[in-house]
């Protein structure tokens, strides 16, 4: 049974105006097979949390820790974290010139598994996943994310999620920019991945609409760099009705 624990995490970023504290003590435990939704207003630090888990060099962990099955993650390199079983579906996936999707997927899979995947089953798996995500075959030969639409980039992230089979995945606003059909397709992909591998999910979102397709076990309200409240799926419905005002006022006062 795998577990991802985030303990009293404080994170800052260097800006032109000096060091800026963004996360002020985040505590969160995700067990294998659980879906946690993080909801919060713009600028509250959701992406910062996601990037910090993945190890983006811009973010500095000032204190606290992230443990994957008891192992400290914050001292690992970005690629070590991925090989340990962490995955981040990015809010803004990056274009990689000169590298085809096929080549990229095979290289990543080889890196994560420690050996090249058996060619036959691999090709079949890639095709199958692409088909289910309604990605045209031609994407395989295109450069990673180059000229992809916003929705296509998000599908490509979920394609990787399905194929790389992490233990824990952070999905940073995977729903934003998707129309209803694409949202369904992408959600199905996430649910498939969870069924097949039993991964734990941290689902970052602004809106409740993705939660209609991916059912969270827990909902956390993220405000001003920390979790302000947590509950079950019903909390999402309440947020939908009331918005974040209640929390914002509190944080402004405090």
């Amino acid at each position, binding site marked *: 049974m795998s577990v991802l624990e985030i303990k009293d995490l404080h994170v800052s970023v260097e800006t032109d105006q000096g060091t800026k504290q963004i996360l002020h003590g985040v505590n969160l435990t995700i067990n294998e097979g659980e879906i946690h939704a993080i909801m919060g207003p713009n600028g509250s630090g959701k992406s910062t949390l996601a990037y910090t888990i993945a190890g983006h060099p811009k973010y500095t962990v000032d204190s606290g820790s992230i443990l994957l099955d008891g192992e400290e993650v914050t001292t690992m390199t970005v*690629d070590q974290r*991925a090989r340990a079983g962490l995955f981040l579906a990015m809010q803004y*996936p990056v274009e990689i*010139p*000169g590298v085809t999707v096929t080549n990229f997927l095979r*290289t*990543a899979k080889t890196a994560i598994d420690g050996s090249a995947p058996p060619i036959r089953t691999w090709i079949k798996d890639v095709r199958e996943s692409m088909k289910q995500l309604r990605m045209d075959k031609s994407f395989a030969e295109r450069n990673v994310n*180059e000229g992809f639409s916003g929705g296509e980039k998000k599908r490509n992230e979920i394609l990787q999620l399905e194929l790389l089979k992490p233990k824990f995945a952070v999905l940073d606003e995977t729903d934003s920019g998707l129309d209803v059909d694409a949202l369904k397709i992408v959600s199905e992909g996430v649910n498939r991945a969870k069924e097949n591998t039993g991964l734990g999910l941290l689902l970052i979102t602004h809106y409740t609409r993705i939660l209609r397709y991916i059912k969270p076990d827990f909902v956390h309200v993220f405000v001003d760099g920390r979790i302000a409240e947590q509950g079950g799926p019903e909390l999402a419905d309440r947020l939908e009705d009331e918005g974040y005002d209640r929390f914002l006022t509190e944080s402004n006062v405090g």
Partner: protein
Amino acid sequence: MSAASAQLNSSPTTTDAATEALPTAEQHGIKEHSDGRFGYVPVQTRSDRFKSVNVTDFAAVTGREAVWKLSPVKKFADLTAGVLDGSVYPIHASDVAGVSVDWVDRADPRIGSAGAPEERASANAWSSFEKALAITISGEEAKEVTVTRAGLGSGARGAHTIIEARPFSRAILILENTGEARLTENVEIILGEAANLTVVSLQEWGDTAVHLTNHFATIGRDARLKHVVVTLGGSIVRVNPSVQLAGIGSDTELFGLYFADADQHLEQQVFVNHIAPNTRSRVTYKGALQGKGARTVWIGDVLIGREAAGTDSYEQNRNLVLTEGTRADSIPNLEIETGDITGAGHASATGRFDDEQLFYLQSRGITEDEARRLVVRGFLSEIVQQIGSPLLEERLQAAVEAELTATKDN
């Protein structure tokens, strides 16, 4: 296209990685520039440039001349102004039926038939060589021949090479360059009717080598030249291919692959002259830059002449910037003197491999070294795959890998 004489002179793109603002949340991968903007720039028609085989007809090089303005001319004054050793040098050529490799004297009638110098280093070589190396290809069967120069030494040299593909002949010719050199030279490539020749010029010089070369090609009726310039090693390497599509239905594909690392200057000035009707050209040059002071220059001139109805032409240059502190110049020019063409276009783009791309690849388990290799290999393999010699392709892939491993710490 109706203009009788249109000068499509796209604004040159210079990417100076040291001074460019970086990065943003979204994309900073590729800066695309494709044309469509028809700027009428009054420059001299490319084919009207002054030519002479006599070095004294050229004024001393200042570095302000159009052909020199992006080159570090002070570093090779010996080649533009000094006395050159024009004697024969050791070569090694594989023994292949249908290919002869000999030293011929200056009276050989082929000399001067494909072109003439347009600048002083070229003319200096022309004035200095004692004998020309002549590679003559005949026979319709496919064949591959490699000519290697490895021992040119460190003194200033001038040289001349003739490559003649007789009518209907067919071959892949690989010119290999390694070791030390301070060399200025001219290479004439003459394709007879319906000849099919691939010339691969491979610059894998030692670290201090300086090499200035002009390849003048003239292509006969229905003949086809594939010309591949691969430059990996050397301090200053400047390869300027100039191709005259002189025969009706002649065709050329010009490929270039260069990898500049710290303090290397790699330059190529490409000229394709569509003279005869129904000619076709494709120019594709790709370069990677890595390390402080890595510098590349690509200038691509295409001239579609008055008689060249039915021309089909496209040229492109792409650069991949791997680290800060590099500079890539990329200048495509298209000049059209006839209204009746099938197609003409150009593109130039300089993309950078940056921290966000690195993070993305690493976040998928790929190590930093491998991420760089992945990107460069992918980017350059398009050119390698064009060569048509599996052995050479494999060798070049390996050379690119070695280049990456050798320079990653710069």
